[in-house]
Structures are given as C-alpha cells and as structure tokens.
C-alpha cells in the first residue's frame, strides 16, 4: 500500500473513531461535564474529517509564500479550512454556553449527575 493511502485511511479512520468516541460519551455518561467533553470530541472529529477531505496528494498549505507563487496546482483545498475555522468558533460558543448552563444547574441542584436531577426527566 502506498504511503498516501495509509495516511488517508489513518486520518479518516481517526476522525471517524473520534466521532464515535464522542457519541459514546454523550450517550452513556451520567456526568454533565463528561457529556460536554463528548460534544467537544465530536467537534474535533468532524473538523479533522473536513480538513482530511480537502487534502490532495503532495499538497502544500494554501499560502503563497515567497518562492511558492506558482504552486497553486499543488495547494490543498482552502475552502474546508475556512469552514473549519468557522466551525471551531461556533463550537467554542456552544461549549461556553453549555458550561454556563451547567454551572447554573450545579448551583441549583448541587449535583452534576443527570439521573439525580429529577427536573430533567420527562
């Protein structure tokens, strides 16, 4: 197998694995902090997947540094990178708001376990 194939399988496999690990944490963990950590791990996996889709063989960074002005054909796709920049910021905002809600819940119920907070059940 070529090196590029190994790298490709590694990056896609790792990102899929990250998404699955995050989903597992979100679905099974009882602590609210661990659920937020799981959401962040899903975020990281999706970012890695998007960046990996934009890669091309022997690609360079999409930056026209001195000496690389003519290398546009070798550059990786810059669009997923810009999208991931946006996604990181949105993910940060989601995490911040979720953590503040958790702080409020903890102050109100004195616990972080979701099965001890009766108000969350329906």
């Amino acid at each position, binding site marked *: 197998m070529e090196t590029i194939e190994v790298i490709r399988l590694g990056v*896609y496999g790792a990102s899929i694995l990250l998404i699955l690990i995050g989903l597992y944490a979100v679905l*099974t963990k009882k602590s609210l902090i661990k659920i937020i950590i799981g959401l962040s791990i899903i975020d990281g996996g999706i970012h890695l997947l998007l960046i990996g889709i934009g890669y091309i063989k022997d690609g360079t960074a*999409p930056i026209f540094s001195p000496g690389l002005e003519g290398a546009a054909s070798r550059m990786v796709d810059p669009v997923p990178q810009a999208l991931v920049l946006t996604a990181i910021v949105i993910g940060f905002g989601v995490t911040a708001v979720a953590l*503040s809600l958790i702080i*409020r819940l903890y102050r109100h119920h004195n616990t972080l376990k979701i099965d001890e907070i009766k108000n969350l059940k329906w």
Partner: protein
Amino acid sequence: MKKTIVIFILAAFGYFLAITFLAPEFESNRNRNGVKNVYLDKTVSELKTANTVTAIVVNFRGFDTLGEVTVLFLAATALGSILFKKRHHIGERTVMLPASSIVGSGAKLIFPAIILLGAYVFIHGHLTPGGGFQGGTIIATGFLLMLISYRDFSISHNILSVIESLAGILFVVFGLLGFMNGGTFLQNFMGTGVLNDLFSGGVIPIIYILVGFKVAAELTGLIYTILHEKG
C-alpha cells in the same frame, strides 16, 4: 445493557461512515476542480493576499464571518445573562485557588510576550498561518494566565465592552464603505499593493485586526465572567 445497545448502534453508524469515507471511489470521484481554483487564482491576481484561507474568510465569505462574530457575541451575551444572578461581589472569586509565587512571577514575565505573539499573529494574518480569531484567542490566554495567577488582577468590563462594540461597528462600517465604493458589501476598495508585503491586500488586514480585537475582548470577558461567578 444500555451500553451494549449503544455500542451496537455506534458500530452500525461507524460502519456506514467508514464505507463512505474509506472507499477508494471516494477519493477518485471527488471533484478537484471546483471552486478551489477560482479562489486560488483570485487571491493572487486580484486581492494580492498570500494566505488563501484569510482571503476566503474575510473577503469571499466576509459576510459569513460577520455572522460568525455575531454568534460569538451572542454566546458571550448569553453566558453573561445566564450567570448574571448575584454578581455583586466583584473582586472575590469562588473557583479560585491561590497560585504559588513561581506561577505568579512566571506569569508576569511571560504575559507581555503572549500579548506580543497574539498581536503578531493577527497583524500578519494575511501573510502567514493565523489571523484575527487565532491571535485574539492567544491574547485571551494571556489574560487567563494573569487571572489565575493573581487573585486581585481585574479588568474593567466597560473597557472590554467598548473595545468589542467599537471593533464590531468598524467591521460593519468597512463593509458599508465597500458597498459605497465598489458595489457589494465588504468589497475591497483600497489599493492591494504587492503580494507578500505587510501593507497588501486592501481591507483584509484591517478587518482581520478588528476581528482580533473583538475576539480578544470577547474571550477575556467570557473568562472573567466565569471566574467571577457567584453561586
């Protein structure tokens, strides 16, 4: 029992993700000549910006970035309003442990260097990897370091709000100036200069510096609000 069910569901989900992305056809069928080449060509020939990602974020999809900055502002506002209850005792913190003198001296030593690095990253956002969001985050980590090292280190919330609002308003003003001079919102209306010069790219470095100030002020305010949360 529940965990077994979850593992089976996740295995099925992972299998479908894997056969989608790990199949050899996924690589060969991917369209490599889409919008990418247009962006790369226009970045060099029209905008004279070295970093294509910056050109996309600030110029081609600049309106998107305005929305993104708004979402960040909204997150800061929501966090402030959720944690607002009983925040009378500014100055004392509940989630703080006293820092040792080694941490204190080291933080004082490294704090100006962190601010300088952040400013460098967002000023050179159109030439090197980095930009307003990254540089603003670096500056906010410097303030985080000072806040966890010194119990009495305080930042004026009013100054942070003024910086944040001013940067946001100037972003929109530069967008509207492009509207008046060029025809579309956030159009590049200044001279673009020479590729790889510091003063190149027209409005792109100016807008990214504004984004850097806004992100730094917002993240510092977020950290400050959480550290001063009173139960």
